[in-house]
């Protein structure tokens, strides 16, 4: 019988070190991720994202609380729990570089208890889809960084686990390779219905891929909402007005806090808020000064902006701001 939640964290927390200098990496956290959801864990370096991912995978023992994967307790039913997950971990190779892509997939499939005959068709499918099939017998160490990361993803997927833990999967990749990996995560989530826990510093990618965002600061989740709601709640809608040529006489008409971006043959003005009165006043001045109006746009809410606001807002420290 399938459990309601793919991942359940109950009061999960971690303190590293003992004695005089213990360090709380993750405050007690309770979180439930339904099947098929992509949740982005965002936070600055050292916020506790990786520790949470590793506690989910049973690679770091929690100080408090528990993790259940598909209803299986990671500490007590490890044998069943680890079968539910595949992981690509941050800052590591994840696979054996001296071995070929094929040998790696065979090894990691059998590591989860599968037989070679069961794994081979899946390995062939993954390597083909990831454009690695022609080089499957070459050592992974001879591959480009992007190809190595593809092998790591294939190794995580070899037993077709329903849950994927992806800790900075695009770290160190060039633009093209990062795009390929991102497209694959999107494919896994939308086409294959995988439950994905994703950490990344590429906020644009997180916004695009994640149906839900949890922002972590100092080991505490300070916001946890569906991506759309998070943007609606925290992003400020702003207007941008672009006129031809320099700012000229409009300078004195700008409200306090407006940002001016002067370009070669145009000037873009970003108003500090979504107050329509400011916009109307500015447009009236544009007409009065006979400046040529090029465009008026409502700026799209942006996760990066929300993230920076949340992280830099001291008032959020120590309190959970918004939770699902």
């Amino acid at each position, binding site marked *: 019988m*399938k459990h309601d939640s793919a991942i359940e964290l109950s009061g999960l927390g971690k303190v*590293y*070190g003992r004695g005089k200098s213990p360090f709380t990496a993750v405050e007690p956290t309770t979180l439930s991720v339904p*099947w*098929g959801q992509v949740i982005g864990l965002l936070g600055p370096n050292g916020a506790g994202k990786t*520790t949470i991912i*590793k506690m989910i*995978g*049973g*690679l*770091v*023992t929690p100080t408090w609380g528990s993790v259940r994967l598909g209803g299986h307790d990671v500490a007590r039913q*490890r*044998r*069943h729990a*680890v*079968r*539910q*997950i*595949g*992981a690509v*971990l941050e*800052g*590591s*190779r*994840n*696979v*054996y*570089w*001296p*071995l070929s892509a094929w*040998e790696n997939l065979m*090894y*990691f499939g*059998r*590591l*989860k*208890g*599968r*037989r070679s005959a*069961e794994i081979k068709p899946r390995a062939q499918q993954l390597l083909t889809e990831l454009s690695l099939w022609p080089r499957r017998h070459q*050592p992974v160490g001879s591959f480009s960084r992007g190809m190595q990361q593809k092998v790591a993803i294939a*190794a995580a997927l070899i*037993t*077709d*686990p*329903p849950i994927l833990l992806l800790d900075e999967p695009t770290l160190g990749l060039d633009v093209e390779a990062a795009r390929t990996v991102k497209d694959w995560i999107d494919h896994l989530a939308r086409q*294959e*219905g*995988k439950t994905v826990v994703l950490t990344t510093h590429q906020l644009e990618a997180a916004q695009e891929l994640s149906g839900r965002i949890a922002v972590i600061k100092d080991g505490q989740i300070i916001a946890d909402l569906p991506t759309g709601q998070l943007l609606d709640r925290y992003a400020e809608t702003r207007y941008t007005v672009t006129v031809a040529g320099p700012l000229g006489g409009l300078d004195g008409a700008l409200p306090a806090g407006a940002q001016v971006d002067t370009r070669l043959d145009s000037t873009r003005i970003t108003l500090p808020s979504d107050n329509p009165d400011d916009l109307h006043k500015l447009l009236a001045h544009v007409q009065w000064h006979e400046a040529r109006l090029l465009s008026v746009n409502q700026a799209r809410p942006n996760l990066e902006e929300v993230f920076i606001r949340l992280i830099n807002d001291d008032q959020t420290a120590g309190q959970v701001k918004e939770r699902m």
Partner: protein
Amino acid sequence: MTALATPTESWLAFQARLAANETAKGLRLMWHRRGMVVVGLVMNAFTYLGISLFIGGGHLVEPLMTLTLPALLAVTVAGTAALQGSGGIAEEINGGTLEQTQLSPTSPQVQMLGRITALAVEGLAAALVLGAVFVLAFGLAYDPHPAAVLPALLTIADALGYGLLIAALTVRIASIGAITHVLNMVIMFFGGMMVPITVFPAAMETVAHLVPTALGIQVLNTTLAGQPLSGAWTDGTLPWLIVHTGLLLTTGVVTYVVNIRRARREGGLSPR
């Protein structure tokens, strides 16, 4: 979107299959660094020749070599298990693959059994080549005696227990490589590779008995000389060999399990 079905087989068969997977990986990795294995083999051979010449005052004394060659083979097995075992674990920690190996339904001790089996194959293959070369090149004569089988097996297990312990310590002590080299030198000197430990002064011989493989080589040489196992049992060397081997293996396994648990607690499975 669910994980593939759980296989229906006995617990033991399942564990054996996962241990075999580790062994196969270990052997594949060894094959990829086979050049280093050959270099190590040649180095061991020349070291042994140099020591034998030194001890023989510039001559190779064949009766002495007959007694010290088994120690060279034991040192080869022990050294391979320790160096490649600890090197492999260190490489896996730094490469992040040790974490990935923990995402397995089997236990760390079963995985370690698989790893140590691969190291045993590597060490024994190297020892067989060295043994064959020296026996054929120098016409060393051995009288294969059935009584020698048990001490030979115990010596191999003792050597692997040492390798297991070193590999287990690597999870905790990052700089174990330097310590391993020193310990390997100790085994070389006190394990009977230079001279049989029976020629040591009594106190030194007693200390040498604590060194991995030393007791095994002493019992092995006794049985190869045609004496029955009962003699080794009566003089206490065989019982102590059994205790020594059991202790090393148990300590190795326990240390590995404890260190893996500790690494999970402290986040030490990933690159340091």
